[in-house]
């Protein structure tokens, strides 16, 4: 029994270490190909991170211990989250609970926001303020859409409400609504288009890049690893929501399909980022209210069916 747990622990940990940079590379490659560029190698994010890890860092004189430890805490929360969600299609090594995971993600946001304010730079503070404002809608949207699934399955444990192949004809309505709400919330959480453009050159207009403007070298490497991991896990979560509709009984098959779905999700993101423009800051609440509305509709369907 404990050997099995150890195996899944190692299995998930290996994916936590290897997959995120690869997926970032895949995203960049997709975007490059859509723009008819050749693009960097799939392994480029690994080299980037390795280079950052080898470099020295410059730290503002204004900062305290928060700035030093925030990237580590943030990364640690994301590793814990990655071990709690069955995002690879197979049982997660640690029992995961919806509300625990949401609040762990919030812990990461808490320390990241504090680290940005620590420097006394207006960029960082604006980034922190904007991220807080965005997550004001993104977080409830994510919670209620997943809670709709949890109420349907009568448990907030990921292993139960994300179990593949659940019965219930209403799931055909619920799952697309949840997927829509989650997609919007996740793009906002990850600071991707159309909420935030990670490729602008002007930090003043950005959310996430403004937040981490002061991080450099090893500190920045930790942030980049955490961001890639967050993207991987959240897209894995999306894949599992979709898999609710398909009864895949073989774990190997479920694992392979999950990976394929994650790649498909990333490719879709690349496509959307290539055709969409970034929304004006003031229009973002309008966009995210669609996420809230879709989540609320999913709740209505769940409530009606009982």
């Amino acid at each position, binding site marked *: 029994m404990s050997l099995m747990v150890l195996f899944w622990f190692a299995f998930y940990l290996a994916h936590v270490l290897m997959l995120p940079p690869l997926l970032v590379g895949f995203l960049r490659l997709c975007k490059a190909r859509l723009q008819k560029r050749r693009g960097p190698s799939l392994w480029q994010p690994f080299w980037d991170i390795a280079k950052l890890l080898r470099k020295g860092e410059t730290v503002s004189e204004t900062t*305290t211990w928060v700035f030093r430890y925030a990237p580590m805490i943030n990364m640690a929360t994301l590793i814990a989250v990655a071990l709690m969600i069955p995002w690879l299609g197979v049982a997660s090594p640690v029992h995961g609970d919806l509300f625990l995971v949401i609040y762990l993600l919030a812990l990461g946001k808490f320390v990241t926001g504090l680290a940005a*304010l620590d420097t*006394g730079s207006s960029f960082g*503070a604006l980034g922190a303020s904007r991220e807080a*404002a965005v997550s004001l809608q993104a977080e409830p949207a994510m*919670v209620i859409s997943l809670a709709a699934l949890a109420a349907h399955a009568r448990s907030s444990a990921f292993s139960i409400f994300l179990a593949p192949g659940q019965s219930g004809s209403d799931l055909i309505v619920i799952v697309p609504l949840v997927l829509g709400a989650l997609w919007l919330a996740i793009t906002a959480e990850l600071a991707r288009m159309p909420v935030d453009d990670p490729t602008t050159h002007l930090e003043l207009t950005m959310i996430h890049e403004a937040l981490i403007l*002061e991080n450099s070298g090893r500190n920045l490497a930790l942030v980049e690893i955490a961001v890639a991991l967050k993207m991987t896990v959240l897209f894995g979560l999306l894949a599992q929501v979709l898999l609710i509709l398909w009864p895949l009984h073989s774990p190997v098959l479920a694992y392979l399909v999950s990976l394929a779905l994650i790649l498909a999700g990333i490719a879709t993101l690349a496509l959307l980022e290539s055709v969409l423009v970034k929304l004006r800051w003031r229009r973002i609440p309008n966009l995210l209210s669609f996420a809230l509305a879709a989540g609320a509709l999913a709740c209505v369907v769940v409530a009606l069916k009982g």
Partner: protein
Amino acid sequence: MPAPSLSLLDVTAALWLLLPFGALLDRRQIYSRVWSALIGLGAVALLGAAVCVPLSKPLAFTLPTPFYLGTVGIAFRLDMLAAWFLAVIALVSAPMALYLPTYMEHLKEHANLRLFWVALPLLLLSMVGVVLAANVQTFLIAWELMSLSSFLLVATKHREASTRHAALLYLGATRVGTAFLAGGFLWAYALTGQWAFQDWHLEGVRALGPGLLLMIGLGVKAGMWPFHLWLPIAHPAAPSPVSALMSGVMVKVAIYMMVRLFLLSHAFVHPAFGYVLLILGAISAVWGILFAMLQEDLKRVLAYSTVENVGLILIGIGGAIAAQAQGVTSAVQLGAAAALLHILNHALFKSLLFLGAGAVDLRTHTRDLTRLGGLGRRMPYTFGLFTLGAAAICGLPPFNGFVGEWLLYQGSLHVASGGSTPLLRFCGLLMIGWIALVGALALACFVRAIGVVFQGRPRSAVAEHAQEASRGMLLAQGLLAAGCIALGLGAPQILGVLQRFLAPLAPAAAPLPSVWTLPIGTMTLVLVTTIVVAAMWMASAARRIPVRRFITWECGFGDLTPRMQVAAASFAQPIARMFGALFRYAIHLRIDGANRRLFPEEITVEPKTESILESRVYAPLVRWINRSGEWVVRLQAGSIHLYLLTMFATLLVLLVIGGLAR
């Protein structure tokens, strides 16, 4: 008496009753350490009394015959619920004893401390009295003593006009509350013929009248929306340890009565109570934290956040009552447990935060967010403890705030999946989203508060020259912080305690400790391991290539000034705009100068807020009362004819009423 609880209670009462006399004799105000130690000893004895309470049957005791109130005795009753609240009182007042000496030393110049040392033990003792009161008369005596002693404490710095205003407003609020309470009690007595709370069992429509009056009376004290207006003004005006007591404990004493009357002893049974508490709690939560986000005074931020947390507690209580009425038995216990646990948790972290704010106030002589900043480097321990308290109040795992919020979520989920009607199930899901919104707002609010007070660069000279708080003050905060961690990690044990007296609410439901399936231990292990490994690696890497220290990136324009930092108001701006309709948020921009368009000389930007509750509801109400007061004054113009006429008319009206009543 065989019970050790009662003898320990006697010790507490003796210590806290003697203290005022000693303090009155202390003319030169030099023995504050002694008085603090007495408070601490009393608190420890109180904690012992709470822990030693026997589980099987409640202890009832009355004072001997000379102490008698009309037809009833001064009676007390100690059961598990009362013990829970005694523990809350003790756990907050014990660290206070370590904090008080240095703080009071600083307060000496501003206030008469003899009054303070008289009022403080009376406040503590009266709270114990309210919790233990078994009948209406005992309750009201203790309640009034609590109101008056806390009024004196709020008025400690009465030489400041704003403090006088706050104290008077608070006194007015307590009068209104007591008026409602008295009405409710009399009504309940008229219906039942009993004064003891334990003998009240009103059901159906009969329960509505007295129940609602009592709910309003207790709600005023608890800071429930829309009766919370006095709270964010009165709590910050008091000295910080008293703010901690008022926010951490005193509002809970009012909630204690709600739990007792409406939920546990079934004194007033009607589903409407549950709905009212649920709705008002939900509004309080969002309203409180939104206004906390707008405040520029550190202690007022904390006071508004108390309104939020009271809202969360009321959601738990109201949810439990409503779930009981709707037959969702599993949610009853979860809601009640969430409320009781959050009461204890909030007592710990809100006291911690108020003590931290008090340390900042003591070292910088300001609580104004526009003048603070950069204290993290100057007061590192206070900073760390305040950050921990903020993480706990935002409900972040693995701290204690998370446990209560998780139970609330879980209770809502039980309603969402087990409710009997679609509307009920939808309301359960809606509540989940609502609590998530409150959580996200709290996070933003406390990131802002910490960032502006402790981080960045100092915005004024006082903040620049601040020093770390004294050892006793840090120790007090450290104890409270340790409590926050212990209650977070020891959730199963504490749920086991709650299970013992909440089990009768829903005998069929799964026991609470078995509901708590979260891998908090494993999660903490993963977190700590990752952080330690990463930190060790970073440290070794820093030895190879040293970290360069340099100024914050300024785009090459020369060093930044503290004024260029994002201020509290600008951090809140995006969120304030989203909810602007609730407080008529507007930004006033003024540009001055000879050539305004091309060469502005002075630009001022100021956000303006105005609460619609205050401007649209309370202000007209106050105007109306004043105007009708003027009209009444005309009757009192000194004309004897008018007086005779009034008396005659009153007699006539009374005769008519008497005749109709027969």
